[in-house]
């Protein structure tokens, strides 16, 4: 291939990548509650049955939004929320919240307006829950005590920790985020920037993303890509879903305006797009285009 053709090919590839990066656009922004007050230090958000749910940690409340990002309702069930960290919907439609101040999970039955407090123990040790995901009647908990992901099931009305996935590789510092997918669990280790994968048949892999990350805090896996949110660089990095992953491009940047990030905290894939929780700007945004 002549040098000119090679140059053109490189330009084409670069053009495609830039085009891909530019294709991402912000479609939704959720930054106020139903009464108009701004979010303060939101820590997490999720999508359930056509609605967004945001943990507005600083204001000690949970807020629901419709699919267009319009705030619907803000609640603090039983005024029990002091430091809510994460939420998800479990069996029977109950709302589950990680309440840091009690080191507990709150099971909230919105219909009967009752709250049940669950503390998790495994082999005599109390867990330190950070993030939760309900999937197919099983609860997955990011546990800071072990650094791993706990597999929990509901036995009657009580939670029972079946096992905790802690990677075999040493040294292991502990996970910062995880996602449960059809093929297994993907988890991001703090400080080392390694990504661990556990397939449902128990096979474990360790992936190290390409250099360039400084302080990654959250990951998402979708459409043959790994998305990593960097809190320090205020960017979302997109990697190939191959080991070792190669960085394709990054998007979003530091700033305080809509469409910019200041202290981002979490990434989550929803049917509406890639949801980004920005604690510093008190904002939850949804991005689409490149998926």
């Amino acid at each position: 291939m002549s040098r000119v053709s090679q140059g053109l090919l490189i330009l084409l590839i670069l053009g495609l990548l830039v085009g891909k990066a530019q294709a991402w656009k912000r479609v939704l922004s959720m930054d106020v509650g139903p009464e108009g007050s701004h979010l303060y230090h939101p820590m997490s958000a999720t999508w359930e049955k056509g609605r967004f749910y945001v943990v507005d940690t600083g204001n000690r409340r949970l807020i629901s939004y419709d699919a267009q990002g319009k705030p619907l309702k803000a609640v603090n069930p039983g005024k029990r929320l002091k430091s809510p960290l994460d939420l998800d919907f479990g069996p029977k439609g109950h709302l589950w919240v990680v309440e840091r101040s009690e080191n507990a999970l709150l099971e909230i039955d919105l219909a009967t307006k009752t709250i049940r407090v669950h503390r998790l123990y495994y082999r005599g040790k109390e867990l330190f829950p950070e993030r939760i995901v309900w999937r197919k009647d099983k609860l997955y908990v990011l546990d800071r005590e072990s650094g791993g992901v706990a597999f929990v099931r509901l036995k009657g009305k009580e939670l029972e920790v079946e096992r905790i996935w802690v990677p075999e590789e040493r040294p292991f510092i502990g996970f910062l985020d995880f996602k449960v997918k059809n093929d297994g669990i993907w988890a991001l280790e703090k400080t080392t920037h390694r990504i661990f994968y556990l397939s449902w048949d128990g096979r474990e892999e360790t992936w190290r993303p390409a250099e360039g990350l400084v302080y990654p805090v959250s990951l998402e896996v979708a459409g043959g890509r790994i998305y990593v949110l960097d809190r320090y660089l205020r960017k979302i990095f997109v990697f190939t879903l191959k080991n070792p992953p190669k960085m394709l491009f990054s998007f979003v940047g530091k700033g305080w305006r809509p469409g910019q990030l200041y202290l981002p905290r979490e990434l989550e894939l929803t049917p509406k797009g890639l949801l980004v929780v920005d604690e510093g700007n008190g904002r939850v945004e949804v991005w689409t285009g490149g998926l």
Partner: protein
Amino acid sequence: MRRGVFFLCFWLIWSVSVWAASSCFTQGCHTREAFRGRVEHGPVKGARCEKCHLPHVSRYSHLLRAEIPNLCFECHKDFKKKLKLASWVHLPVKRGACGRCHRPHAGPKGLLASEGARLCFNCHQGIKKASYRVLHAPFRKGQCLACHQAHFGETRSLVKGGTQVCFACHKKRKTVARHGDYADENMNCLTCHNPHGSNRPHLVRNFLHSPYEEEACDECHGGENTGADMCLACHDDKREEFLRVHTHYMRSGKRPFCVNCHSPHASDEKSLLRASPDWLCIRCHPEALVQKRESLHIHPAWEKCLDCHEGHGSRFAGMLKGDANAVCVRCHKTQGKFTHPIGEKVKDPRNGQTLTCVTCHDPMGTPFKYELRLSGEASLCLECHKGY
């Protein structure tokens, strides 16, 4: 014939260099004596001034042929290679400031700018000032390089050979045996001993954990509690501090995570920290150090991380000790009263968040005066005051 050509070339190179050198020294401008020393730099020794200098004009100071350190790397090629692979690089080396420590022409061993610890203390003044009742012999003699590497190393302190450095002088088996059953060859001596000096015998660090002081080893070793519970069993008041939105609660493994930051035996810090906060915190937050080094304006208390940040847990972003106004106003008292409006009632038009000191300032370091996030000339203000 080939031999003849070789000798001709050799003679030409030699004669040109001799001519060049002799012309530098013989015209009455540069005296040869000024370039003499116990050790002479190779090119100086060979009177090959042209290796580093141009005789007529140069775009670099001192008529150098190239910029420092690139000029140095032309000969010291191996050094450049090693530099790229190093985990931690001494700051002057990283900045390519070879001349901070080395003389270019002649000097003591290593062409150092001054001998012994005097050179190191030019920058490391804090260590020089420390007054200890008992001094480690190499420190007393100013032999910094007995334990430290000058250019790069595996750790930030550039200690030679990590935990094994002490055994270069202190016989391993004998030293370990003197510590009883709990010590082993891989333990880090610096956990308990200060390698420079201490007010205690055997260079044991000044503040002791009470079970260690009382020789109640069993309180921690061999007790029933594992993980963080080992520490929290006594320090129960700290448990609540970890139950906050932002927390340093970590995976424990075999040892409680608390000992990642605290020494269970002895420390130079009252709170038994393993090192001063600017060293300790940087192990996991190297980005703060990078930001500092890339900034022109840094908060004067940058090194005192725990003045503004919580060590265990906080409900504020960045693990601050309070909201970003409360933290600053503790010292900047007048700024809390008259300044650009800040506080609960003043909202940032860009994101609707409460306007605080850190809306405009970044104490961790910026390129702008007063650690402003953008230039105070206009661009920072225009972020919000569009009409101006």
